[in-house]
């Protein structure tokens, strides 16, 4: 508690952990490259340097606020320092901005502009290093790395993986996996959070846009899209739509214009997931085996369990993820020559997630010898495509999804936020539909952005312990407690990315804290707008399970063969 004088104005502070936070709260956007409120303070970039009344300069991220401090954030000296820092960073950085995929979103580029760096006086003496294309999810370009360490810290602190770290020192320092291996040879789960935290183009999404355009150009191909729940509350960011606004109708319209033949909502297969996963859960409860049930929607989490907790492989739900279920269903539907109309089918999955690219390649993502999901693109790639096509997403009129898979429940939509899968399962288990029932479920304890949430519900006289966690470091904590016997759960829902898919590794980047809330709210609001609240009320479920097209095929299409 106390007061500081920042640029001549009195500013109150309470429990802010550093001066930088106080300055930013006062409305001054001091630049940073290595500071992130969710990560440990690193103090490497020195861009947040400020000056005090004695002419002393220091990094404001690493200094606690004290009562009576006098701080200047925009003095001659500080401006000069910052400009020089950026100039030095640029000296050892590839400067092909026009062709860099990160252009327009690159913090280094923005700062060079903002701080008025017009000329770089120093020569680049750094040796050129090869790019790492080994991962299906991300591309690493060491030549664009500025050693801020954000990727290192998010991988270690938030995700608990630690696939990459600094190596060597001084001018030789680099970020790399152990022994300079390829990223695919590490424990990397493809979550893509390193890419979200990377301020430059050193870690970017492995893009599959080219394949989509190619499929769209082919007259003999039917291109079918499925859009994941979390995409709709983030795709509008790049087009000036209000943060977290549900842009589903506009996305569908844009995809139709680009030439997609059919556009579906992955929330439909989220309903299928709940049908199957609830049945599986009840069966396991009855038999008392393979509990706790671990959700299988998140491929990064599934890989994490397989790599780090192999004893719990059997606990993972055998259900395919909504993406894989839907692709298998779509492919099966068009295997019928009547529906195929002589065309080949390509399924394009639009996801907030980079790990989905890996999931689509997994050996168990094939049905009848055919790859279910042909191409996965992320929300970020989708917005690039919309831009390339010249479609003004903000102005386009909404359209609705196509049939026969165009109806979904609100329970399917909230899959995109942590706790959503659990809420959907509980809606399925609890009888009743009314607002009072829905509200009481929502208050059970699965909502909110805490990393680990635990609560109990009573089902048919039995108390069920449920744990909902996001972020793999949190998942590790939960699993270690389960392993040691300290905690006993019946159901564990994990999303690898903190706060769930809305903050996935493939989402558009500039997402401040209020963005996160807005995206979660956007999905809950979308759920609120829907008349169908749970999967059992979705009329298409009956069509699927009892109709001609899929009768008797549910297990083959909806569960992982191994």
């Amino acid at each position: 508690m106390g007061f500081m004088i920042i640029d001549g104005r009195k500013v109150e502070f309470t429990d802010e952990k550093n001066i930088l936070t106080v300055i930013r709260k006062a409305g001054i956007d001091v630049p940073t490259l290595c500071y992130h409120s969710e990560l440990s303070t690193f103090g490497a970039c020195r861009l947040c340097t400020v000056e005090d009344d004695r002419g002393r300069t220091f990094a404001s991220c690493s200094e606690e606020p004290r009562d009576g401090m006098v701080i200047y954030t925009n003095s001659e000296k500080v401006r000069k320092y910052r400009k020089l820092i950026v100039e030095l960073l640029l000296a050892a950085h590839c400067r092909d901005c026009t062709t860099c995929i990160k252009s327009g979103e690159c913090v280094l580029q923005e700062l060079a502009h903002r701080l008025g760096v017009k000329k770089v006086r120093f020569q680049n003496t750094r040796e050129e290093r090869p790019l790492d294309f080994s991962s299906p999810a991300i591309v690493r370009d060491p030549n664009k790395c500025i050693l801020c360490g954000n990727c290192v810290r998010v991988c270690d602190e938030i995700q608990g993986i630690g696939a990459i770290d600094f190596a060597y020192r001084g001018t030789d320092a680099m970020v790399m996996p152990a022994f300079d291996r390829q990223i695919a040879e590490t424990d990397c789960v493809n979550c893509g959070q390193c890419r979200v935290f990377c301020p430059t183009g050193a870690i970017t999404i492995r893009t599959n846009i080219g394949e989509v355009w190619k499929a769209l150009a082919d007259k003999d191909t039917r291109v079918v899209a499925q859009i994941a729940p979390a995409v709709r509350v983030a795709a509008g960011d790049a087009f000036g739509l209000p943060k977290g606004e549900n842009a589903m109708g506009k996305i569908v319209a844009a995809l139709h214009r680009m030439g997609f033949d059919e556009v579906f909502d992955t929330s439909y297969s989220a309903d299928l997931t709940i049908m199957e996963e609830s049945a599986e859960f009840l069966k396991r409860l009855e038999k008392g085996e393979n509990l706790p049930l671990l959700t299988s929607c998140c491929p990064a989490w599934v890989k994490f369990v397989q790599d780090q907790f192999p004893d719990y492989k059997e606990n993972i739900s055998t259900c395919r993820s909504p993406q894989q279920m839907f692709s298998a269903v779509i492919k099966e539907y068009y295997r019928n020559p009547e529906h195929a109309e002589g065309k080949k089918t390509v399924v394009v999955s639009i996801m907030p997630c980079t790990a989905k690219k890996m999931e689509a390649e997994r050996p168990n993502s094939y049905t009848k010898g055919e790859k279910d999901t042909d191409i996965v693109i992320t929300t970020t790639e989708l917005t690039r495509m919309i831009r390339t096509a010249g479609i003004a997403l903000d102005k386009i009129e909404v359209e609705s999804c196509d049939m026969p898979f165009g109806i979904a429940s609100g329970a399917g939509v909230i899959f995109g936020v942590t706790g959503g899968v659990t809420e959907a399962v509980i809606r399925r288990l609890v009888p009743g539909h009314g607002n009072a029932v829905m509200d009481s479920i929502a208050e059970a304890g699965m909502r909110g952005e805490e990393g680990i949430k635990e609560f109990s519900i009573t089902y048919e006289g039995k108390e069920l312990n449920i744990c909902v966690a996001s972020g793999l470091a949190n998942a590790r904590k939960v699993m270690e407690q389960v392993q040691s016997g300290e905690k006993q759960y019946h159901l564990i829902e994990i999303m690898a990315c903190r706060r769930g898919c809305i903050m996935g590794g493939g989402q558009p980047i500039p997402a401040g804290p209020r963005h996160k809330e807005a995206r979660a709210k956007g999905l809950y609001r979308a759920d609120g707008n829907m008349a169908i609240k749970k999967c059992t009320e979705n009329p298409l479920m009956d069509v699927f399970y009892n109709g001609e097209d899929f009768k008797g095929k549910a297990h083959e299409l909806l569960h992982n063969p191994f």
Partner: protein
Amino acid sequence: MLDQSYYQKADEIIAFYGKKPSSLIPVMQDIQGVYRYLPGELLTYIAKEIGVKEAKAYSVATFYENFSFEQKGKYVIKVCDGTACHVRKSAAILDAFMKELGLSDKKHTTDDMLFTVETVSCLGACGLAPTCTVNDEVHPNMTPEKVVGLITELRGEC
């Protein structure tokens, strides 16, 4: 593949310092003390055992010049290139060693695994410049001629 005995040795050393992340550096030092280098597979192994991420262990191992992933020769020769030695022409001493042993900037160890030549920034024996050490034994006031004699002498010993 490393011989099983390496892992047993590592287990002993880890047991001595305790299975905790802070044991990383002492364990690495002791392993290098035993084998004169730090085998990569062993680093992966100890990282797992003491609960440090492999990439972090690699980060530490590459940060300190002292750790080496390459096997070193029986005689590790450190030529001092600190300020005092440098001005008294330590470069010529280094050249003499390299020439005598057929080594280069890229190749630090002889094929017969007898000699490894490195430079160090200061041995703290500036009064004896130019100087070098052979397995921590100091050789003062070196000249290119004395280098040839030293190598011959060491070769004779084995």
